[in-house]
Structure formats: structure tokens, C-alpha cells
């Protein structure tokens, strides 16, 4: 008895009989005449990123490297976050004082859910769409950790912001090949318009998303070069 796989493949090949047998997939040209890179100056990109994240009803604030830990602490306080979940590889210098940190070392879902918020880094941001991207890299935690607490505080350095979707996709090419690096794009808090088309922000997952944009400290060499 033939397998479903054989049957489907042979049906497909039969159905495509009109395609010249010499045609290879790469012979079907793909015109990529769309923009692949944003040309506006980087400071404007950062402004655009911030404006577009805000349009999704996410909180977004500019901070400096020196004030980062204090800004994280004040964000948590403003949201009454007492127990803050953090990934085990939280970057040094981020830990806020006077907030209880819960480090995710293989915690159960119930333990994750018992936290008031989660603090993570991200891998990049997209100005065009106001998107932050997590790729399971350092400081970003596993997926359940950014999903179960009701508040997600995400830190992005302004030099992590790219202009267009194609720039982001290109940067993610290597991790996309890796099973151990699931990728999540987040554009504002979750939302539904299912009830009479009224938009409600915050359905499942964190109902509040807050983004801190850190001004990148440029060393003398990088500004000169």
C-alpha cells in the first residue's frame, strides 16, 4: 500500500504536468524591488520607533545607561510590581534596588505566574512597525517567562533599533535556523477587536507592555569613526 506521502507527492507532480520539466525553482524570478533599508538618520529612527510603540498603547520611555537600574525600579513601583521575574542571565547593572527579584531557574508555570512582572532585554526593535523582537538570546528569558506575568518591562538600546522589516528579518537569519532559539515579535500588548470591533488591549499574556529605550553610550572612537 502506498503511503500518504507518496500519494500526495505523485498527485502534485501529476497536477504540475504543464510546468516545463527543465524549469528549476530558481528560474521563477522574484522581483525584490521593495525597500530593504531605511535611509533616514538614526536619531529619527529612534523617534519613529518610540512613536509607533506608543501608538499600540504600550508605555515607552527614554532613559540613560546611568539611570537604567533606577528607571527599572521606578517603573516597577509605578505598576505596584513587588516580585519581578528576571532571566538567569540578566545583564549586570540592571537589577533594581528594593524590588524582590525572582530568578527564573526552571521555575514552574505556577511560580512564573505568581510574579507581578518580567524584565527582559530584546534582540532588536523595528522602527517602521514599533516592534520589539525576542530571539531567546541573552537576557531575554524563555517564552513562558514573558507570557505568564501580567507586566512585561523590556529594555532596548537605541543602537538595536533598525528601520524596516527586511532589516530585522536579515539580522534574524542565523537564529531562525536554530531550534533552541524560538523568536517572538511583539508589537504592543495583546489586543482583541472581537466584540463589536471595540479594541481591548490586554487579553492573554502581559496586559501591560513597557519599553525603556536606553541611549547608547558611544565611546570616543565610535563617534569619531
Amino acid at each position, binding site marked *: 500500500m502506498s*503511503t*500518504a506521502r507518496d*500519494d*500526495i*507527492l505523485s*498527485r*502534485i*507532480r501529476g*497536477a*504540475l504536468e*504543464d*510546468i516545463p520539466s527543465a524549469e528549476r*525553482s530558481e528560474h*521563477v*524570478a*522574484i*522581483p*525584490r*524591488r*521593495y*525597500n530593504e533599508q531605511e535611509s533616514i538618520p538614526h536619531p529619527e529612527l529612534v523617534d519613529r520607533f518610540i512613536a*509607533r510603540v506608543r501608538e*499600540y498603547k504600550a508605555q515607552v520611555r527614554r532613559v540613560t545607561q546611568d539611570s537604567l537600574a533606577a528607571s527599572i525600579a521606578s517603573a516597577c513601583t509605578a505598576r505596584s510590581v513587588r516580585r519581578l521575574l528576571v532571566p538567569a542571565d540578566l545583564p549586570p547593572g540592571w537589577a533594581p534596588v528594593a524590588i524582590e527579584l525572582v530568578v527564573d531557574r526552571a521555575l514552574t*508555570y*505556577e511560580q512564573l505566574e505568581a510574579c507581578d512582572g518580567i524584565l527582559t532585554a530584546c534582540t532588536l526593535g523595528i522602527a*517602521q*512597525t*514599533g*516592534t520589539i523582537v525576542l530571539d*531567546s538570546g541573552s537576557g531575554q528569558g*524563555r*517564552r*513562558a517567562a514573558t*507570557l505568564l506575568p501580567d507586566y512585561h518591562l523590556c529594555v532596548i538600546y537605541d543602537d538595536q533599533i533598525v528601520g524596516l*522589516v527586511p532589516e530585522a*528579518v*536579515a539580522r534574524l537569519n542565523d537564529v*531562525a*535556523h*536554530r*531550534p*533552541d*532559539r*524560538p*523568536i*517572538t*515579535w511583539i*508589537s504592543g500588548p495583546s*489586543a*482583541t*477587536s*472581537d*466584540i*463589536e*470591533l471595540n479594541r*481591548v488591549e*490586554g*487579553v*492573554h*499574556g502581559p496586559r501591560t507592555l513597557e519599553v525603556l529605550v536606553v541611549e547608547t553610550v558611544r565611546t570616543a572612537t565610535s563617534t569619531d569613526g
Partner: protein
Amino acid sequence: MKYEPLPTRPGIRFEDAARAALDNTQLRRNMGKATQTIRAKRAVVVEELPDWQALREAGRAIKERTIRHLDQYLLELEASVQRAGGQVHWARDAAEANRIVTSIIQAEKAHEVIKIKSLTTDEIGLNEALLEEGIEAVETDLAELIVQLAGDRSSHILVPAIHKNRSEIRDLFQRKLGHSNLSDEPKVLAAAARAHLRRKFLTVPVAVSGANFGVAETGTICIVESEGNGRMCLTLPRVLISIMGIEKIIPAWRDFEVFLQLLPRSSTGERMNPYTSFWTGVAPGDGPRAFHLVLLDNGRSRVLADPVGRQALYCIRCSACLNICPVYERTGGHAYHSVYPGPIGAILTPQLVGVANASSLPYASSLCGACYEVCPVKINIPEVLIHLRGEVVREKQDHPTPGGPDVEGLAMKFLSYAFSDRKRYERVQKVGRVGQRLMTRGGVIDRLPGQLGGWTAMRDVFPVAPQTFREWWSARS
């Protein structure tokens, strides 16, 4: 009401169902509001991209390449998913897909699964098949939950519960979720659904999803969503089963740079949807411990065999063609008697099940051309409709049914009913004016004018010039 998966009920004609829908005032009002709103949002975010037409060209070309070499890409996808630790299953038809899914669930000794909205699982009637085996499928999209609790059917790909208003939803939640005094505030209702589903997300061991895209090169599967129930289902259970129509494949990771611009803007009219998840096989210590991908044919290879009709398989299910369609706007989704409503349904369903089984659907259109113009992958829906009408006529000549319906005559009668009635016409004009206000930015009327005006205008210029001369020239060379 018993849900009807494909194939459609051969005895029921589009025009009869449509007439019933037209007589349902609430459905018509809600549908009008939904399509107007989404359409206006889409127009704004599409207008914002200077390279939109180039993206459409690329999207179509990527799909064309994939479909013309589908066997090659399927084998590549299979190898990539297996390399990444996933298991791949092939299903010739709905029954086989349902059997595969059932046996995976039974091996996990699960009696309940959580589900992400998926037209593909609707198409194969998965929930009903599971129920017969004593497995309950819990829908986790808010609208799907509403539809499921009400024992009803979806009326729109994107907003399936658009035919229900807030007080009906409140009553339903009170009855079914054990609440005693909910208000009918959308925020309150959403919170009730959140609480109800959170327990399920944390305890149910198996999730079932569809797939928006599967990447042959990497084995990456992508789900695009808004509510976060998708992330929950993809992350928390220990086993994940994704059922993917064989046409959902894209060749390379890079192709997301096109589709993740085309889909959200065409679909919900957003620059980007709230959550997009990508996973490649199984990630140790993060998410499900087992991943199964079910590749579904179920009539798709039949669609593939028609050189004109096969472009229907390029569809990325954005629903832009539904929202722009003057016929769909009046009748709603139920009239199409298929999980695939609207213009795409009118060309896809007859091909999936055979034109003899859905012979009135190719007539469920006025051929105005608006669907082609908005389609992000440039499916020439009017061309396929006309082609399928030819098939219907040939079918009738080959297998005449004495006293059978004069399909075209009935369809024309329906269209004149929908468009000629004076009150209906005035209502349409009024909606059109509101729509224009919505679409006016900075004093300039966007390129999607009030619907009836748009309809007549586009009808005059049909067929829409599909390419500029330069595009045509370079496509030739």
C-alpha cells in the same frame, strides 16, 4: 446547529442562503460596520508604504515559485522540520488528518486539547472528529470561544463573531462560564474569557494550531495573532500539533520580509499584529517537548492541476478581499456555506470540492475587480471566477439535471435583489459617506472611496490594469 465542514452542502445554493442573510438586519448591520472599519484601517497603513506594489509583486512571485515546485519544497520542509526535532505527517484528506491528530492526542492520554483559530482545522472538521473520540477541543480565540459556546458558526475569517453583539455575548458568558453579573463592557467580557482560558492554558497537555507559514529552508513555522492565546498554546502544553495546508509553505526565511509586511497590513490594518511567533522544531527547555507537523492535501492537489485556478493557492488568508467585496458585505460569511467565505471562498471552495458540488459559488460575485486590487499576493479572483463559470457550464452540459437550477439566472436575480432595492441602496450610500469620512486624512480622500461609488467606478474600468508597462516588460524578460 451542526457545523458543516467542506464539502459544502450540495443542495444549498448561495443565492438562497444569501437571501436569508440579507433579511437578518443585525447581521447586515454588524457586517457593514466590520468591513467598513477594517477596510478604512487597511487603506491608511497600505497608503503609508511607498513600495506596496513592489511588495505585492514579490509576494505573488514567491508564491508562484513555491506552487510551481511544491513537491520539492515540501520535501525540503519535511527534512528541515525533522532535522530540528519535529515529526512530519502527511494527510491525503480530512479523515486521514483527523485520524493522525486523534492518535497523537490519545498517545498522550489527553481528553482535552486547546486550539488556536485555524481555518484549516475548521475545513477538516477536526473538533467534531475529536468529539467522536471523546476529546474536547477548546477554542481559545475570543471570537472562536464565543462561536463555540453558542454552538454557532463563524461569519468572517478575521472576526468570526461579528454577527453577535455585546449583550448576546454577555448573556452567553453568564450562561456558559458561570458568571452571575457581568457587564457588557468589552473589557469586562475579555477579562472573563482571560480568566476562563488561563486555567486551560496551564493544564491542558496538547495544543492544536494551524500555520500561517512554514519555511522550507529552515523548518520554521510561523503563527501571526493578536490576543496572545496563540503564544499560550504554542508555549505551555507539552505537545504541539500544527496542521498546515501544503500551500502554506514559503521557500526561505528571507521571504518573511515580504509576507510580514503584506499580511498584517492587509488583514487587520495594522503595521504589525501584536504577536508573531516563530519556532523551528523543538527547543530544549522552552515550550513543547514534542512538535508534530501535519501536511494536508484535502483537495489542494486538485486545485493545483488547473493552471488558471491554482493561483487560489497563493492565498495568505488576510481577508482583505472579503472586506472589500460588495456581495460579501451584504450577505456575510454564512451564505457561502464553506469555511472559506467571500471572494477567495468563491474560487477556492468549488475547486477544493469540485465545481459540481458548489456550482453557485462562482456566481457569488459582481466581477467588480476590487478583490484583485486589494489582494496582497495579486490573485486575479475575477479571472478565476470567469474561468470557473465556464467549468460550471461545461459540467451542466456534460451532466444535465432535468429541471435543475439555472445557476446564472438565479445568481443574477440575487445580485439585482442585493443592489436594486431602494432602501438598501440608500443605506449603502449612507454607509459610504461615513466610510469616506473615516478614510479622509488631511483633507484628502483615500483611494478607497465609499463602497457603492467604488463598486460602480471599478466596474466601469474592469478589468483593472494588472501591471504598469514597465512591470509587464520586466516580468517578460
